[in-house]
């Protein structure tokens, strides 16, 4: 057993941390997310060209650094710490995970484009009545002589307005909830038959509802048996999301400790209040344990499916609850200042809140855990 990072991983973390400190300060980030477009393409280019970090999790033969889940963890934690909205999770982790599993010349071609920063993905999966059920897919994929076309509606697609391509789940066969018959496709964001309704998300990103009307799509891997790969890749994304949450929570805790030490009331720093001290200790204990659960989930990704799912769901249950507690406590301890748009703390709180439900709430994952045998 070993939970230490390799020197290369530490280097990766340091590089990213310094890069974001230099290029992605909170004020720059705010200016960017409030702009008309809501994002700046330069960051993504920089991640590819200046840092070369987009290949962190891919094999060297496709231009990557040869890393894996732990490298994703490192990147996602820094993304959380700097409140970065760029779609590393959707592109490199989720999309990359599907492409790695496909493992064909065409897949390697796509991976090369990811590593080079040419493509950005958004995950078009959620359908209005699905809630968190990954198997609920009604969008139809139809095979035509020259490829596939999709018809259906996906909503709340995070990052869709910035994406070059959408990763779309669609049904090739079977009924609405069947495990069999779900495949994942890539659709160019500017494809004919794709209509996007854009809007902002409360945590500073943009999203959209996407309607497909005979939109041309490229099938990733198998048409009818894509669900296992999807489930595994989504679990990898959940582990990445937990790492992002860890970055967000570390910052919430650090800011709160700092603020309460500086802020004086009744002639003493408010950190002198024992009740506030214990609240911060409770935040600290949740953060530390969230770190442990994120390691557990990340290192379990390569284990057999039931073990992987159990570890990932347990981590999501813990992290979702921790994100709520830490976020709420940070705002409460900042008092009125925590309520303002001006301080970073409220934005980290909002991101923490959205992470709670992304890819399934605590209750959803508790139920998934219950559906798996306790000793699997």
């Amino acid at each position: 057993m070993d939970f230490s990072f390799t020197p290369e991983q530490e280097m990766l973390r340091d590089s990213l941390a310094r890069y974001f400190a230099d290029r992605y300060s909170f004020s720059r980030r705010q200016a960017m997310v409030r702009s008309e477009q809501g994002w700046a393409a330069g960051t993504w280019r920089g991640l590819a060209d200046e840092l070369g970090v987009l290949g962190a999790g891919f094999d060297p033969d496709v231009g990557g650094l040869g890393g894996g889940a732990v490298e994703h963890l490192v990147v996602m934690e820094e993304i959380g710490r700097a409140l970065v909205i760029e779609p590393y999770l959707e592109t490199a982790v989720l999309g990359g995970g599907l492409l790695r599993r496909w493992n064909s010349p065409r897949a390697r071609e796509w991976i090369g484009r990811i590593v080079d920063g040419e493509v950005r993905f958004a995950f078009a999966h959620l359908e209005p009545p699905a809630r968190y059920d990954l198997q609920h897919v009604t969008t139809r994929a139809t095979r035509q002589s020259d490829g596939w076309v999709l018809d259906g509606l996906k909503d709340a697609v995070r990052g869709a307005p910035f994406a070059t391509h959408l990763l779309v789940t669609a049904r090739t066969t079977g009924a609405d909830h069947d495990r069999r018959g779900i495949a994942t496709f890539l659709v160019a964001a500017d494809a004919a038959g794709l209509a996007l309704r854009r809007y902002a998300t409360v945590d500073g990103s943009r999203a959209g509802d996407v309607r497909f009307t005979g939109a041309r799509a490229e099938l990733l891997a198998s048409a009818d048996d894509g669900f296992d790969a999807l489930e595994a890749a989504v679990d990898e994304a959940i582990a990445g999301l937990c790492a992002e949450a860890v970055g967000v929570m570390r910052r919430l805790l650090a800011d709160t400790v700092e603020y309460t030490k500086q802020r004086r009331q009744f002639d003493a720093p408010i950190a002198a209040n024992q009740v506030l001290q214990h609240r911060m200790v409770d935040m600290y204990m949740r953060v530390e344990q969230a770190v442990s659960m994120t390691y557990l989930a990340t290192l379990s990704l390569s284990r057999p499916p039931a073990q992987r799912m159990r570890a990932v769901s347990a981590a999501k249950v813990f992290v979702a609850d921790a994100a709520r507690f830490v976020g709420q406590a940070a705002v409460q301890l900042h008092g009125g200042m925590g309520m303002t748009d001006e301080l970073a703390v409220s934005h980290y709180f909002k991101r923490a809140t959205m992470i709670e439900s992304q890819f399934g709430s605590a209750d959803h994952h508790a139920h998934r855990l219950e559906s798996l045998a306790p000793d699997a």
Partner: protein
Amino acid sequence: MTVHWRRTRLPDRVTRENQMQLDFTDHELEFRDEVRRFIAGHYPPEVRERQQRGLEIRKQDYLAWHQAVARRGWSVPAWPIEYGGTGWTPTQRYFWDEELALADTVPIISFGTGLVGPVIYTFGTAEQKARFLPDIVAGTVWWCQGYSEPGAGSDLASLQTRAVREGDHYVVNGQKTWTTLGHFADWGFFLARTDPQARKQSGISFLLIDMRSPGVTVRPIITLDGAHEVNEVWLENVRVPVENRIHEENQGWTCAKALLAHERSGIAMVSRSKVALARLRELAAGVAERGRPLSEDPTFRRKLTGIEVDLLALEYTELRMLAAETAGNVPGVEVSMLKVRGTELQQRLNELALEAVGSHAALRVRATLAPGAGTVAMPAAVDVADTYFNMRKTSIFGGSNEIQRNILAKAVLGL
């Protein structure tokens, strides 16, 4: 020494009159019907429409409703009758609050009616009463509060704003913050330090300031939900006539304390939370996974039931205090409990609404959709997250829940 107990220590029989009971009197129930009819008949239709369409509520919307209520003579129920009060019993006041909540009206903004008004009729001169009270009752002047200062938080008495006497004026300099709806205000009531040598609470005066005075600047504070509700107010050499000071110079803290003790009724927001719970049930009934509505998910239901029970406990605790008040016992600091529990429940309701809408909570649609662009896939999700974010304020503003617990520890438990 053994006491000798005799049967005669107990009454021979118990009278059946004046027994504890839950029911309201017929007279009280008739009053409730009257209130309900009044609201149904007089609530401005254009305000209702804006609410239903999810449009922002404007100054004129609040005032339209206030003025309708004023015409009925009910805008300041808790005031002494001579200044426009209704002489209602605590139960009647409770029904009034409850019916307003059940009808989901916009609130009657209380800076005039609930805060500065009572200070003026308690401490003001005859001239001041005649000048300011009628407009407050009628809802023609909007008041705001200038209490908190940056860096002061719940430590109100540490204020830095200075008022220096120059002839028949004070010259006021300082900065106030968290001034709710200050951008609508015609007048404001401010605490300013008039004796910088005096101990903390001493040396403060209570001043009424015309918000159009030169040197008054109101700057928006945008809150985390993107809303403009609170403001900073900058005072730069603002000249305030001495006749706009309420009570003696340096006696402002007396006014401030009286004001903080006022208008606690309805602070638990039980009726508003009941409405929110009913909406939450509706919301959960409309959300399903694998065909099963969330309202039938046992885990979610158990959380709803927990809130329902706690809401009942809060409601009957408030009613007990109300009954005690009716019997002549002025409520004490126990009302801090209503504030703490009331806000905790509101926040739990917000959390469950957030859980109900799931990933759709991320969408901030209203602000970013072009008008008429239609609704998103889950219209109910709109605003759920922003409401959740906004309502985090309830455990912070008005004396944080931590401060309320400090107060209870000291005043109720003697710790």
